[in-house]
């Protein structure tokens, strides 16, 4: 209709504006189209289930009989669950041990490898450290169950040769979690090692050389140059390791089933037993929400603490 108005001078900008608007609308349409598969899947498999878990935690349900609304009962029950302190202690102990061994061990190994050295030895050690990470927990857990066997296992035999009586790892409650920590180290140290090695290689050599010419010793270089320069990578590795470790499940389920005497029962194992073995869907959802808040809380805490030691580059 505007085209009929006798204002030829204004016509081109108007046509321009409508064309631009139409182009913008078409671009937005394309945007929604491209995003739609991901968005639908996100709603169906993440956002929807997330909301459903919140709702389910307010019910008592065994999947067979009709569910019953119980309000916050599942949460009050969780807080007074006599097993919960033990389960949380196991999980945090495992997570802290995992972070400490992986970051410490990974950093030491990365430092030891990151220097001119024999090519065969370099290839061998890097591959040997990294390779187990490519296997599945199922293969690793089963293999180590036999490696640690008190009767015919490697560890018992060679410890015996040097005069140490190996404990009966998965029968003795004071050793079972330690054994899982050790197996986890063997399995996933390659991941931390590679990430920290990549981080280490971004530290400019001139900086290290300069510090050395200025008379800094190796320890000073490590703590005052290398670690500050690597802090973003160290921070990332810490968070990833913690989140992964807090959700440890596979080896527990495969080797110990949470025993002996609950010594390896972690929070996700407890969730699995509650939800998929006892079919207490509501209570299991409450446990899942607890896991969510703990992970979120610790992650936020780490981000908050990171302002003190992580250097942005």
């Amino acid at each position, binding site marked *: 209709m505007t085209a009929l108005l006798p204002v030829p001078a204004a016509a081109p900008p108007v046509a321009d504006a409508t064309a631009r608007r139409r182009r913008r609308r078409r*671009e937005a349409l*394309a*945007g*929604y189209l*491209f*995003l739609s*598969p*991901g968005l639908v899947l*996100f709603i*169906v*498999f*993440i*956002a929807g*289930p*997330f909301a459903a*878990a919140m709702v389910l935690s307010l019910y008592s349900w065994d*999947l067979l009989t009709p569910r019953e609304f119980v309000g916050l009962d599942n949460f009050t029950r969780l807080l007074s669950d006599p097993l919960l302190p033990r389960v949380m202690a196991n999980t945090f102990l495992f997570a802290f041990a995992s972070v400490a061994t992986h970051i410490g061990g990974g950093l030491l*190994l990365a430092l*030891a490898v990151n*220097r001119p*050295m024999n090519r065969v*030895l370099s290839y*061998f*050690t890097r*591959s*040997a*450290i*990294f*390779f*187990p990470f*490519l*296997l*599945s*927990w*199922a293969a690793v857990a089963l*293999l180590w169950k*036999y*490696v640690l066997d008190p*009767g*015919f296992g490697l560890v018992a035999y060679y410890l015996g040769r040097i005069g140490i009586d190996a404990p009966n790892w998965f029968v003795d409650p004071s050793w079972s979690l330690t054994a899982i920590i050790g197996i986890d180290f063997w399995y996933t140290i390659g*991941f931390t090692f*590679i*990430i920290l*090695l*990549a981080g280490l290689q971004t530290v400019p050599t001139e900086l290290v*050389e300069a510090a050395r010419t200025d008379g800094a010793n190796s320890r000073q270089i490590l703590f005052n140059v290398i670690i500050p320069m690597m802090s*973003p*990578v160290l921070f990332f*590795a810490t968070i*990833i390791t913690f989140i992964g470790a807090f*959700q440890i*499940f*596979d080896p527990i389920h495969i080797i110990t089933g949470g025993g002996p005497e609950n010594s390896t029962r972690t929070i996700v194992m407890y969730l699995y037993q509650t939800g998929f073995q006892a079919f207490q*869907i509501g209570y299991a*959802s409450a446990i899942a*929400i607890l*896991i*969510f808040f703990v*992970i979120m809380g610790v*992650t936020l805490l780490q981000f908050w603490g990171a302002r003190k030691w992580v250097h942005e580059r």
Partner: protein
Amino acid sequence: MTITSVPARDLLTAPKRRTRRRRRARAYLLDLVLLVVGVLMVAPLIWLFAASLTAPGSAFSVPPTWVPHPFSVENFVDVNRMIPIGRMALNSLIVAVLSVGGSLLVSVLAAYAFARLSFRGSTPILIIMLSALMVPAQLVIIPVFIMMRNLQLVDTLTALWLPALINVFAIFFLRQYFTSIPRELDEAARIDGAGHLWILFRMLVPLSAPALSALAILGFQASWNNYFGPLIFISSPDKMTLPLGLVTLQAGHGGAPAAVVFAAITMVVVPMLVLFIVFQRNFVASVATAGMRG
């Protein structure tokens, strides 16, 4: 820096020689430590291969066997008799290929929308998706299980790969990668009459090959090794993937002898070892790339 330090070093020849000798001694010591670490890392695997190739009766002798003697492939034959391991390997492959291929396709499309197209709600949607990275898998698995049960998809391979199609990390990672590719390239292509699909699949995707291969490797490994999903969804042996199959072989109906379990583990480990030796650089690079995001 080097120029100024040369005369100073010349003056200090004697201490220099001493530090050099000490440094070399330390290098040898480090070499030795690394060698020991490497041997300790591979020892369980060597034992695994050796014992699985030993005749059932003598596989687990004390002291441990490091050389298969008497040599036998009987354990491997037994694996095949006790579980459908070929079928399980095929299942693992199907699930991994569909998960990785499908999730990369979905992620590439979404990443293009976030990186190149402006539409209302794009930033809030991205933020909501990213915050879901903090949601642990266990929180959503119960409702997803109920959903799969209602759709009668429990005990099917679909239950394993369908939820894996959404990968928020991949979407974000690719969005960052696309954003780093100059927009002028798109505009030049658009002037030549190219549409969004052409720009995405003929230009951005090829230019993002390193990111895509890193995501593909990590995704394949995650799917191939997944235990929690199959444990919850799958119950019949011919629908199982390898990790669950291994565990049922060891724990199910009385449990197989250790030597047979070892043979089964070997059958799972060796293909991975071959892949690793062939594609070593890619494996390591993919982990390093994912890590450098931080």
